[in-house]
Structure formats: structure tokens, C-alpha cells
């Protein structure tokens, strides 16, 4: 039996803030990657030829139905065998971004399908080129509807960043493990990290709910 020690919390703060910074960095870059790649997948779903559609479906289904942790190890251990060397942080960011791009792809797809067919027909009637149809007609209407759903995946992604500790990225969880290894204090650092996730994720999910009310329909 052991009691809570606030001084251990104070001792952990410098490491914690470093970890928080890395977590947020992974989150921002991973989100940007997943938003971009997800859009590419979603446009691939609607490609005119099945030689693009089928591979895109197969690849995204495979990535979405296999664990992020194993994918992290795959990127971390296998890519160097082919001579591609990245730091753990870069590898982790890429892996998490690619993994979540398969989720955002489904969100984009739903958003694009929700645009009324009349909009496509109008674009055809105005003989807009394909690029203009996407950028000026379809996407502006689709993206507005899907902002809350994308935001919810960003929150999920936040909660998956501790997996990067598995490949020794110095995010919050790994920092708490280092702190525990140095001071033999297990209780405080881990609890601080757990609470930090709730403190970030809960207001963020409230924000998404508010956005949903405002932007959707």
C-alpha cells in the first residue's frame, strides 16, 4: 500500500511536457497525412476503372483490419531492410497517418456520396473539367459535413499515440516509463499520463459534438 505523492508528480512534469509536445507533434502531422492520403483513397474509390478501384479497396481494407501496433513494427523493422531509414518518430507518424487514412477515406467517401447527384449533373452541364468539379463543387460541400467525423478520428488517433512507445518514440507514455525506471515511482507518472488523455480528449469530443450540431445539415 502506497500513498499518492505530489512531489513525484512535480518531478515528472519536465519529462511529461516533453512527451506532451511529441504526442501533439505526432498528432498534428499524423492527422495531416491521414487527411491527405484518405482523400486520395476516397477519390480512388470513385475511379472510372476497376483496375484502380479494386486495389484501393483491397489495400485500405487490409490496413484497416490489421493492428496499428503490428504495422508500426512492420514499418520500423522492415523498411530498413529495403534501405529506407527513418527515425522512430518519423516512422511512427507515418504509420499512424497511413493507418488512420483508411478510416478518413471512409468518412470522405460518405461525405462525397452525400452530395446530391444534381451537383454532379450541374457540373457536367456547365462542362467543368474534372479537377474543377472536385475542387469547386463536390469537395467544398462534402468537407463541411465531415469535419466532425474527421475530428473524432483525430481524437481516436490521439488515444493511439501511446502505441508509439512500442518503437521507443519519446511520447507521454514512454516518458512515464523512463521516469518510472529512473525513480521507481510507477503510480504518479502513469496516472498523470492517463488523466492527461482524458483532459485533452473529453473537451475535444465536446467540441466535435458542438461542431456537428452547427455544420451538419
Amino acid at each position: 500500500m502506497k500513498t499518492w505523492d505530489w512531489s513525484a508528480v512535480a518531478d515528472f512534469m519536465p519529462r511529461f511536457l516533453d512527451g506532451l509536445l511529441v504526442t501533439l507533434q505526432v498528432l498534428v502531422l499524423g492527422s495531416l497525412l491521414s487527411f491527405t492520403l484518405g482523400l486520395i483513397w476516397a477519390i480512388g474509390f470513385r475511379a472510372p476503372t476497376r483496375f484502380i478501384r479494386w486495389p484501393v479497396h483491397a489495400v485500405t481494407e487490409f490496413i484497416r483490419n490489421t493492428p496499428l501496433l503490428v504495422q508500426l513494427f512492420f514499418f520500423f523493422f522492415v523498411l530498413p531492410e529495403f534501405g529506407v531509414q527513418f527515425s522512430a518518430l518519423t516512422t511512427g507518424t507515418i504509420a499512424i497517418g497511413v493507418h488512420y487514412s483508411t478510416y478518413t477515406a471512409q468518412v470522405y467517401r460518405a461525405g462525397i456520396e452525400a452530395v446530391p447527384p444534381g451537383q454532379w449533373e450541374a457540373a457536367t452541364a456547365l462542362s467543368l473539367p474534372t479537377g474543377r468539379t472536385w475542387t469547386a463543387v463536390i469537395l467544398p460541400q462534402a468537407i463541411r459535413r465531415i469535419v466532425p467525423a474527421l475530428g473524432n478520428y483525430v481524437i481516436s488517433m490521439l488515444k493511439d499515440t501511446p502505441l508509439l512507445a512500442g518503437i521507443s518514440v519519446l511520447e507521454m507514455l514512454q516518458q512515464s516509463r523512463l521516469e518510472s525506471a529512473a525513480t521507481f515511482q510507477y503510480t504518479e507518472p502513469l496516472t498523470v499520463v492517463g488523466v492527461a488523455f482524458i483532459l485533452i480528449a473529453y473537451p475535444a469530443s465536446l467540441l466535435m459534438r458542438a461542431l456537428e450540431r452547427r455544420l451538419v445539415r
Partner: protein
Amino acid sequence: MTAGLWTHWVLPGIWITLQLTLYSAALATAVAFTVGMARTHRSRVVRFLAGFYTEVFRGTSALVLMFWLFFVLPSLFGWALVPMWAAVLALGLSYGAYGAEVVRGALNSVAPAQREAGIALNFTRWQQMRLIQLPQAVPEMIPPFSNLLIELLKGTALVSLLGVADVSFAAYLVRLATQESAQIYSVTLVIYFVIAFVLARGMRSVERRTKAGIGITATPGGAR
């Protein structure tokens, strides 16, 4: 990869992964129904407690929770969990919180007139829940539960970080032994994909069966 590594680590690893999925799914289902039904309870205190539970366990990361149960619980309370059960507890409690939202949504989507009919027939609240609301709500829950089950399966990979010898841990050992990452990690990903595929198919048939039970024909490609 030699046959020895395969029979000593990978096959038992698959079995551990399946066991973890099964036990955590059972716990998560129990939690989901308990908390989800509590969120529709008439007492405000019960609703608040259930809502608090879902927000806390959905808010934190399953991996952090798993580490917390494994490393902090022993020093705070003086008793320790076997890694396997710490993992089952962490996965069951956090995915149960996600499931509770599904249960609540499905219960809310049952037409209010159905419950009123129960009142008119002088059913107790529990009878209304058991005989009227749940049979209509459960088929609605199956597609989102199917997605959660896949997420749960993917979540079981986290236990390898606690040293539980599941299939991800086996992959790690095989990599150390053979120094060939590409092969074993590709095989591992395929193993997970096959399990996920079978689970999704199974849930599809459960959906058809429960819908047929209340006289609805399932829409093809309902899950996801």
C-alpha cells in the same frame, strides 16, 4: 522460419490472441449492456454515473489503462494482476464504454410507443426492457458491435507490450531469432486480417439471425 518457431510461438500466439479477443469481448458486452441500460435509467444519479464511466474510459487510451492496471494497481492496493487478465480488464472496460454508447443509441431508437404499450400492459420496468425494448434494439446494435469487435481484435495486439505471448509477441521473437522482419510481419498481418474477416462474416450472420427473429430481412452488406 523454421517449423519449431511456428509450432512453439506462432500457433500458441494465435490461440492466445483468440482467447484474449473472446474474454475481452465477453467482458465488454457485459459492461456495454449494464452501462448502456443504466444510461437510460430514470434516476439521474445512475445516468450520471454511467455517463461518467463512459467518458472516462472512452477518454483515456486503452494502452495507458492497461499499463496502469498492470503497474499501478499493485502498488496502490497491494494485489497484482496476471498480465493476461490486466489486458482483458483494460480491453473489456474501455471497449465496453464504446459499446455502452451503441447500446444507449439503439435503445433510444426503439419507438417510444413500444415502451408505452408495455406500461399499458402493466409490465414492470425490467419486463419492458427485457421483453420489448431489448429484442428490438439488439439487431440494431450488431453492425456497430461488429466494427467494435474488429477494433478489439486489433487492440489485443497491445498485450504484447506487457509480455503476453500473443501472435504479435511471437512475431517479435521470431524476428529476433531469424533476423527476417519482412516475412514474419507480413504473415502476422495476414493472420490478423483473416481473423478479422472471419469475425466480420460471423457477425453478419448473427445480424441476419437476430433480424429474422423480429421479422426484418437484413439489408445485404449491412455491417460497416
